[in-house]
């Protein structure tokens, strides 16, 4: 008897749930049309809630990005729901569905990669929730989203281009090496293209480049760079696709006697991309020649402005690509542009530099 009773309770629960499932779209649409008609009246008073879903905070760039976004939102009186996916794309998809169920007004994501950005954007489009993708763009345009991203190819080209011009002064053929990011991330693809654009423009200056996969993972980068440098000790020109890998580069070059300042014999030319505080410090000390800078604060502000604009207009599926032109900070323009780099701004805030 009890067995049948328990099964009956379970059955009732499932039926109730499916009654809910079946009617998911209808009430939402009704609510949507109702909310649209009253949007102008209520938006000014209604508390806006934005969910911020990030893949993880493993580098200074993402920590600073997280801080910039959450502080800006909170300063505007916006309620923020935060979710960390711990680098799990499926979990981030489920988190997006969860916050949609909480009826958030918008979602901002730092996706695990370009492909998962597409999958999550599609879910948001279906639910009629505006989505903004921060710094790691979708791999294709199958879904509508607000995207803010640095022009990685151009910025990388500027940084590597500066190094190439400096290398020409050495009157020798260089052995270049690139530390490649996770190629599932369009940022990594753009940075790699920028590097190769310069290499291909200067065939007489460069030997065939060596590629070191990093997967945006410090231990992987360290292991692969160590192997590559042992096999090719004549490498004298390194471009890292992200500044957060400088500690690994130093720990490989130093025991080989190749961690030298600019102008010292045996200096390995170095450049990276991001513009973090480590890069800023190493440029000040004279180890790094150039670094491509993403304007982190501009990106955060531009995305939030576009998101709030879409919410106020009732646009459920905004579709806009916001470009961060960025720039290359080099030893040549350090005097003028040093404090335009977000990593140096952080150092200034901490009182490390003036």
């Amino acid at each position, binding site marked *: 008897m*009890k*067995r049948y009773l*328990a099964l009956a*309770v*379970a059955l009732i*629960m499932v039926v*109730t*749930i*499916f009654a*809910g*499932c*079946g*009617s*998911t779209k209808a*009430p*939402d649409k009704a609510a949507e049309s109702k909310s649209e008609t009253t949007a102008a009246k209520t938006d000014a008073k209604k508390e806006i809630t934005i969910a911020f879903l990030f893949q993880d905070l493993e580098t200074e760039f993402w920590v600073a990005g997280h801080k910039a976004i959450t502080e800006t939102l909170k300063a505007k009186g916006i309620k923020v*729901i*935060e*979710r*960390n*996916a*711990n*680098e*799990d*794309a*499926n*979990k981030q*998809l*489920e*988190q997006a*569905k*969860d916050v*949609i*169920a*909480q*009826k958030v007004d918008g979602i901002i994501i730092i996706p695990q*990669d370009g*492909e*998962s950005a*597409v*999958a999550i954007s599609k879910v948001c489009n279906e*639910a009629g929730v505006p989505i903004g993708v921060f710094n790691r763009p979708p*791999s*294709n345009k199958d879904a509508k989203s607000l995207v803010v991203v640095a022009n990685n190819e151009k910025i990388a080209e500027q940084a590597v281009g500066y190094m190439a011009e400096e290398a020409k002064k050495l009157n020798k053929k260089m052995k270049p090496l690139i530390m490649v990011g*996770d*190629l*599932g991330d369009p940022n990594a*693809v753009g940075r790699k293209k920028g590097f190769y654009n310069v290499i291909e423009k200067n065939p007489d200056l460069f030997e065939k480049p060596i590629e070191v*996969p990093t*997967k945006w993972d410090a231990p992987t980068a360290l292991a692969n760079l160590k192997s590559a440098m042992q096999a090719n000790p004549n490498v004298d020109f390194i471009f890292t696709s992200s500044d957060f890998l400088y500690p690994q580069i130093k720990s490989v070059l130093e025991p080989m006697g190749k961690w030298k300042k600019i102008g010292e014999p045996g200096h390995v030319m170095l450049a990276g991309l991001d513009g973090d505080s480590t890069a800023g410090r190493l440029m000040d000390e004279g180890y790094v020649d150039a670094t491509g800078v993403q304007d982190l604060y501009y990106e955060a502000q531009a995305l939030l402005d576009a998101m709030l604009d879409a919410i106020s207009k009732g646009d459920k599926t905004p579709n806009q690509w916001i470009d961060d032109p960025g720039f290359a900070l080099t030893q040549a323009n350090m005097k003028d542009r040093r404090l335009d780099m977000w990593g140096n701004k952080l150092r200034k805030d901490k009182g490390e530099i003036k």
Partner: protein
Amino acid sequence: MSARKNPMDTKLQENPEKRMFRIPDLRQGIKRIMVSEYFVLYLSILWFIVMLPVIPNIASSRNLNNIFDFIWPLLAVCVGQTLVLLIAGIDLSQISVIGMTSVIGALFMSNRIDPNVLSDSPLWGTVISENGGIMANSMWAVPVGILMMLLVGSLIGLINGYFIAKLKMPPFMVTLVTQLFVYNLAIFLTKSNNIIGIPKAFTEIGKGKIGFIPVAMIITIVLCVLSQLLLSKTVLGKWIYAVGSNVKASVVSGVPRDGVIMFVYAFSGFCAAFASVIYSGRLEMGRPTLGQTLLMDIVGATIIGGTSMFGGKGKVLWTFFGVLFFVLLTNVLNLFNLDTFTINIVKGLIILLAALFDVIRTKIQANDTKVEKAGA
């Protein structure tokens, strides 16, 4: 033989007036609920009802939809783990089987592959190219892709089973090594990149609905029913319980121990591949890292359901209850807007409690059996 006297009855006989006000024995009641096979279902319902006034949003149609959306792939993989736990084993490789089979399926089905992303793959130019995978644009791509996913998953499980059964190696060690090997092989084959261009017919398995019933639900329920029938209605099912309850006795009784173990691990790999079909369909890609964070959820939900880690005790229905409770718990913690670390700590504690509870239940049942034997 004399029947054991209940001390309570003796007291009541001494004072007949108290018979009128006999209250139910609370301890017995709690004990009965604790050993009930529907305990976790009761707990889930109670949890839902208690949380309803605190978080009214829990009963919104979209949230309920989400809960039942998250259950199916996890349930599928937990069914495989249930059978493994039934023979007192453990399968840590399921999470890597999910990633590997996700890649295998995409290698067969993908209709377009970006050379910028995958040209470094050792499979480039032979198995995959700019035009897609092995069966790109073929009408048979999806069925063959799924079949290959299930075959590869089963094969990995069979290899686990072989080492455990024939070479008498510890399941923990074998499946841990397989987990590492298979995960890194998937990373090597794809250079850690995702494979996109998956046909819509495949993604619909993860996301689509027939009427208002999700396809993932239909196929997972079929898997569950067949698995439960296998356990309860077939000789193989009885062998599985026998091996888990007492392996020596089962061998003496003529149970083909090695064959049973190999079957169970192959089935576990099959279930992981089955879950991979749903997960990959949802994400619309073959993903080598898919499932890597799921181990705690898989083992936790199965144990919470009541399947014993000591073997010989468990049902697919219990696993469903365990997954339901686990997903409901996670959902509530999310709705409380707790951070990921807090959620994981709470989930870990609940799993620990479930494991402790398993020990208590086993003791209670062992005591009851002793009492019954003494009373017989």
